[in-house]
C-alpha cells in the first residue's frame, strides 16, 4: 500500500494509508520503514532504537532485511537514524537521535475497527504457535532473504535464475546473485483461496480477510514466481495484468515474524 508521508525540518515521516493507528492487515513499523527508505536517497543509517520499537521479533535481522530490500547501508555510525513512535505506527528518518514531536498523519483509507482488532488478535495468537506451518529452516530463510525480499537473481549461461539454485545441469555451481529483477511482473494465472483452501499458516487470518489471493507472475527477464496478493479488497486479479511488489508480513511462528514480498495490482 502506498505510504502517507510528511516532513519537518529535521525528519521525514511515514505511516500506512490507514493512518498512524494501524499499519494494515499485514503491515507493521518495519514494512512502513522499508517503503520510506526506498522513497529516499540511500545513505547510511542507524537502527538500534527502531529495532526496539518492533512489536514482534523478525525471523531475520532487521539490518539484513533493510539491506536486502533497499540500497541503504545499516551502520552504527550511520548518517541518519531510523526511528519509530512507540505510541503510533509512524516511522521517521532523521539526522537527530530522537523525535520530540511526532506529527499527526491522517488516514486516506477507512479502518474497519472490528477487522483491525480481529487481525491484531490473530497475529498475537499465530505468533505463539509452534510449527503450525510447513517448516522452512532458519538458515534457509536467511540464505534466501536477498532473493525473497530484494528479488536478487543469479545468472547462468546468460539466463536469469530466480529463485536461487545451487548447481546447473553441468554440475557447476551457479554464481551468487548479481542481478535484481524488476519490481514489476505480469500475471500468468491467479487464484483466490477460501479460508478452507489456505495453508494452516494463514488459517487465523484468512477467514477475516475472506480468503487469500495468490498470483503466478512472469518477470520481463524470464523467471516466474508466486506471490500472495496484498491490498486487493477492491480489485480482482486478471491474466495479463501487471503487479509490483512490497515487503509485508507473511506469517508468524515460534515467536518470530517472517517477511516476504507480496504483489500489488497496478
Amino acid at each position, binding site marked *: 500500500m502506498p505510504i502517507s508521508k510528511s516532513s519537518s525540518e529535521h525528519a521525514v515521516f511515514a505511516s500506512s494509508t490507514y493512518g498512524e493507528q494501524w499499519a494494515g492487515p499485514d503491515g507493521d513499523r518495519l514494512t512502513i520503514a522499508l517503503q520510506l527508505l526506498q522513497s529516499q536517497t540511500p545513505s547510511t543509517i542507524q537502527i538500534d532504537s527502531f529495532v526496539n520499537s518492533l512489536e514482534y521479533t523478525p525471523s531475520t535481522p532487521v539490518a539484513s532485511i533493510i539491506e536486502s530490500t533497499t540500497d541503504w547501508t545499516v551502520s552504527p555510525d550511520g548518517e541518519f537514524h531510523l526511528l519509530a513512535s512507540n505510541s503510533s505506527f509512524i516511522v521517521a528518518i532523521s539526522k537527530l537521535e530522537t523525535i520530540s514531536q511526532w506529527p499527526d498523519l491522517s488516514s486516506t483509507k477507512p479502518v474497519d475497527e472490528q477487522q483491525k482488532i480481529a487481525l491484531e488478535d490473530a497475529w498475537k495468537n499465530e505468533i505463539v504457535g509452534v*510449527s*503450525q*506451518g*510447513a*517448516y*522452512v529452516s532458519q538458515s*534457509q530463510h536467511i540464505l*534466501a532473504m536477498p532473493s525473497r525480499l530484494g528479488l536478487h537473481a543469479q545468472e547462468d549461461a546468460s539466463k536469469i535464475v530466480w*529463485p536461487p539454485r545451487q548447481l546447473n545441469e553441468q554440475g557447476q555451481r551457479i554464481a551468487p546473485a548479481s542481478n535484481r529483477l524488476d519490481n514489476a511482473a505480469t500475471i*500468468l*494465472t*491467479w*487464484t*483466490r*483461496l*477460501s479460508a*478452507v*483452501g*489456505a*495453508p*494452516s*499458516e*494463514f*488459517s487465523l487470518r484468512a477467514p477475516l480477510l475472506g480468503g*487469500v*489471493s*495468490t498470483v*503466478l507472475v512472469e518477470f520481463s527477464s524470464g523467471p*516466474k*514466481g*508466486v*506471490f*500472495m496478493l496484498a491490498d486487493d479488497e477492491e480489485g480482482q486479479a486478471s*491474466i495479463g495484468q501487471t503487479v509490483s511488489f512490497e515487503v509485508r508480513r*507473511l*506469517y508468524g511462528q515460534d515467536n518470530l515474524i*517472517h517477511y*516476504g514480498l507480496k504483489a500489488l495490482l497496478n
Partner: protein
Amino acid sequence: MVDVAMVGAGQTKFGNHPLGLKGMWSEAVEKAFSSVDNDCSPSMVEEAFIGSIAFGGSQLGNTAALLTEHSGMDGVSVRRVENACASSGFALRDAWMTIKSGQADIVVAGGIEKMNDLSAERKRYWLGVSGDTEWERLAGLTFPGTYALTARRYFHEFESTHDDLVHVSVKNHMHGFDNEVAHLRKDVSFEKASSGAMVADPLTLYDCCPTSDGASAVILVADHLAHQFTDTPIWVKGSGAGSDKLALHDRPSLTQLRATQLASQKAYSIANLQPNQIDLAEVHDCFTIAEVLATEDLGFAGRGEGGRFARDGLGRRNEGDVTINASGGLKSKGHPLGATGTGQAVEVFKQLRHQVESPRQVRDAEVGLTHNVGGSGATCAVHIFGRER
C-alpha cells in the same frame, strides 16, 4: 530379462476407516494374499516396499518395519517409500525393478495412509508438506491452490471452461458409485457439481478429491513362479517414472506435467504399446483439472484437447476407446495418499482378470495403465499391465 507378474492384490475400503495403521495394512495384505489362486503366504515374501507419507507423523520413522511385523512378514527386507501422493506408485516400481534385476522373486508393494483422525488444523499442515514449502506455501498455496492456478491458465490457453471439469467430476462419481471400496459413493448431477462451494477459484469442492484412510498391497513375482500361484497372472508390461521441478512456477509449462510425459514414454516404450492400445487407465485425478492434463500427457487426447475429451464423455466406462478411472478415481474412490498408487493397481488387477462386480467391469479389458502423481507433478510413476505376457 525376467518378466514380472502380479498374482495378488487387495485393499481396504478407502474413506473414514475405523482401523489404525497396523489394522488397515494387515487387512490389505490379507486380501492381497487371499486373492492369490494357489497357496501363497506372507512368509514367502523376500522384499517389501511400502509407500506412505506417514501423514500426521504417526510412526514417522521405521513405518514399514512396524507394518511388516504386523502382517506376517517378520524379518523381511523392507523400507518406506516416500514420494508424496506417488509413494506407492514408486513402491510398485521399486518392487518391479527388484524382480527385474534378479534380486528377489516374490515382492510386496503397497501403501498406506491414515488421514482422518487428525484435527482440521493438523490435517492442513500435513496436506502442505509435499509442495514447495519455501516459496509456494509461503505465497498461500496448498495443492488446491496450485491446481487452481493450472486450471485457470488451462482455460486461458485452450478452448475449455470449468464445465469440462464438472464433466470429469460427474463421470468419476458415476464410476465410483458402484465401487464398494470407494470413499464417496454418490451419484452427482452436473448441476450439483457445477455449484459446489469454492475452495480455490476456479476449483470447487466437486473438483477436489477427499482425504481418505486406506491401505493397499499387491504381490509381484518373477515369471518362472507366476503360474505356480495362478492361471491368470497380470503381467507388468512396462514401468516408467519421472520427475519435474517441485514448484509450478519453475516449470516451463503450467499446463503440462513433464513428469507424466517422461514416465509414460518410458512405460509405453518398455511395454511396446501405444496409448490407443490401453483399455482402461486409472489416472491421478486429485483435482479434476489433473485428469484433463493426464489424458493429454498420457497420449489419450491431443494437446489442449483434454477438456473436449471430458466434455464428450470419451473416458466414460465402455463408451470411448479408453475408460478413465473405472474405480471412480481419487475423486470418488478416495485418496489415502500413500495407498493410492497400489490402490490403482488393485483396480487394474481385478479389471484385467474380469473379476469386477457388475456393472463396473470394463468390457474386454486386456491392457490397463496406472498413473500416480506426487504433489503438483514433481514425481510420477506410470505402469502398464496386461493379460498377455
